[in-house]
């Protein structure tokens, strides 16, 4: 399992050379994609039990996910957790002060600000 982790880093940095060293790029990428989608599906199932299920239900969470990943830093799982908490706080506080509609705008304005000022987020490595 740990090997796959290192293979990810290798592919991210230089995929051609990684394949020359025996890393099966398609398989590793598929595993990563598969795990990611499985987690997304799990989250969707959980959400479905609270909110309405419809074909476009993924849209708003997707935008939130982008924001969280950037806030936390691309490539860092711990960063995602931190980013998630931060986003939740911002959304709630902004929602309280400015109303829910403007809150989503505030989130994206924050996203844009973070990207301009510190694109690597909390814990991202470049």
């Amino acid at each position: 399992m740990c090997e796959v982790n290192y293979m990810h880093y290798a592919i991210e940095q230089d995929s051609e050379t990684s394949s020359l060293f025996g890393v099966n790029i398609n398989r590793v990428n598929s595993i990563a994609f598969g795990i990611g989608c499985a987690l997304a599906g799990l989250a969707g199932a959980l959400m479905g039990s609270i909110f309405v299920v419809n074909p476009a239900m993924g849209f708003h969470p997707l935008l939130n996910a982008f924001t969280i990943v950037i806030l936390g830093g691309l490539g860092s799982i711990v960063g995602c957790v931190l980013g998630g908490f931060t986003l939740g706080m911002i959304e709630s506080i902004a929602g309280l002060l400015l109303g829910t509609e403007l809150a989503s705008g505030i989130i994206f304005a924050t996203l844009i600000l973070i990207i301009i000022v510190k694109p690597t987020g909390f814990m991202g490595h470049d």
Partner: protein
Amino acid sequence: MIKFKIRQLLLVFVALVGVFTIPLWIENLYVIHLSIMVCLNVVFAISLALILKMGNLSLGHAAYIGAGAYTSSMLAVKVGLPFWLTFYIAGIASGLIAFFIGRITLGLRGIYFTITTFGLTEVFRSIWIAFRGTFGGPSGIMNIPPPPGIETKVQFYYLALIFMLISFFVFYRLSKSSFGLLCDGLRFNWLLEECVGVDTSRMKTIVFVIACTFAGLGGSILAHYLGHISPSIFTMFLSTEIIVYCAIGGLGSILGGAAGAVFMTVLGEMLFGVGFFRSLIFGIFLIGVIIILPGGLASINWNMIGRLMQKRRIA
């Protein structure tokens, strides 16, 4: 050589005559509506195509279309200005917004720029929804007057058509000249272009502002045509639809973007025109194009057709 040019010009002339006389031989108002949408989509597509040509993926085109639409509608409904004034102000407004946003974001690396673009779309939407007094909230702005002197759909068609032809002329000429070559250079290797003396940040800003200005102008016409706009029109779905037009047409090609817009608008309406079926069609075509024909429609040339014919003969 000369024969080829004459053949091309003749083709263009026939096509022009054809599109100008559509209302004469088709009476179905739905087709006229479709043609108006095609014209507007072509303008949206070719303006985005220019941004793509310089190497920046913008998922925020809907924001600029919406900015133009809202500016034009609000000036018309609340201040009472005529369309012929609000049209140009809408374009200027979109251009100015593009200028300021562009100055800040165009220097960012690829994916970060893209994220700011769709962030902007959502920020605009939330502003339009939240400030009900100014922007009309979720129900948007209603009773937008059509341009004075243009009452029927057919007249609107000619307005849209002329707008599309002028825009196409501008963008096509830009792409076929040094300007277009510079854009390609930016896309392939902006560092090299910077180091041979081209002010790349100024270049990117110029391209972005021109493209978004035309998006805003198109948005203005859209608003006055529909008569009623709301934030639910200018979403990321709209942005991605326009991306699909450009992707099908081929990256870096203005003509391709236009062809993609025509093709997909007509196809989308002919098969299921509404809601999620539309997204399904678009999705299938996008994936299909990427897998089968990555260069898009623009990469179809005589070489490829020749090779296909050869394959059939051997088999």
